[in-house]
């Protein structure tokens, strides 16, 4: 269970269409310390693909995507630099 770190910051992007969740994530990732986790709450299906793709492009780490009971996902990203 070392993987599921408590997020240091939760970004509520529920109801928002891509690219807005990604823009919010890019703006706020530097608000957490190095190696901390940001959780993006999103329900646009595009975010499910786009947050991990953003991590790959920006060399941050996609930790995992967890389904939310009300629909959508909590997508966890670890700040790498």
């Amino acid at each position, binding site marked *: 269970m070392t993987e599921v770190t408590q997020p240091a910051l939760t970004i509520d992007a529920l109801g928002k*269409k891509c*690219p807005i969740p990604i*823009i919010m994530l*890019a703006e706020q990732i530097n608000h957490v310390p190095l190696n901390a986790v940001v959780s993006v709450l999103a329900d646009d*299906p*595009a975010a499910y*693909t*786009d947050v991990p*793709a953003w991590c790959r*492009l920006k060399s941050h780490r996609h930790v995992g995507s967890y389904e939310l009971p009300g629909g959508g996902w909590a997508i966890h990203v670890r700040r790498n630099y």
Partner: protein
Amino acid sequence: MAYFDAASTEPLHPQAREALLAAIDVGWADPARLYNQARRAHLLLEQARTEVAEALGARPDEISFTSSGTQAVHLGVLGTLHGRRRAGRHLVTSAVEHSSVLHAAGVHERDGGTAETVGVSLTGRVDLDAFAAAVAGHDTALACLQTANHEVGTLQPVTEAAEICRRHGVPLLVDAAQTAGRMPIPPGWSVLTASAHKWGGPAGVGVLAVRKGTRFRSFLPEDERERRRVPGFENVPGIVAAAAALRAMTAEAAQECSRLSALVDRIRETVPKIVPDVEVIGEPVDRAPHIVTFSCLYVDGEALLTELDKAGFAVSSGSSCTASTLRPSHVLEAMGVLTHGNVRVSLPRGASAAEVDRFLAVLPGLVRRIRQDAGVE
């Protein structure tokens, strides 16, 4: 206006237009009848069939004409599965096939069959090991693979896939919609589908080729036309024009496709240098000659398409906001690449270097402005 959406439809080839107008006058009668006008229509139809067969590497009696590429896929997938019901009920496709293949798979599943999609790499190329494992399943009746992906241009390893299928006695349906007329058809297919308007023919004509010896049985009510594979009166003038376009495109292909491919290379190399935070998608070398796709981070795909349209460029996008559905393109999802801010440029015959240069000149400013409007630094 620069038209850069050939992957959706190639403008009508001048030779197809000429053939269409001539055939409307002389090829209108029912080719199944016996009087003079009918025999003329029949002759035109069979000449076109021979020409199309030759261009696609098939025998004339293997070729049936359909009303579209989509219909060719629907009939090809479901007719082959129907013909092989006793051999198995399992269908194998790549995850990035055209929606017509995936929707036919959906019908097969609702009819009690099973379907499996094989994943692709980050560049959209099917995982051949996983494909081979799926084909080897005891119940597999049919496998489907496209020659090139319609959204990102990546060429699929069709020759290798065909060899795998041959070893396991499983027929392979090859969807050649994006490459027919532009590149040679890879060998080894059992069923081949294509669409005339993608090679400069008119809309309303598709091709379904069934290799001799492949079990095939239409699932539709019986009809005598097109070797019982396709119901309904043939669109003879459209088919004649389609054959003329295919002949013309194939004759020009070697030269024109290498010219377009160099322009695609220019876009692939230049875009990341002049637009920050952009990802060029798909295989850089093993690709269709005319297609290039990229995604711009933090950009709304619909906004970018609208701005490009205003600037005089017709392009398409796999981003969800530009589609009729709420989901982004299943191709981009399966590849695991950015789905927003997506632009597909696909160059038609005759696209000029000057148009491409003008596209590259206006793109950075448009992307910058859309990002600024969205509050991105």
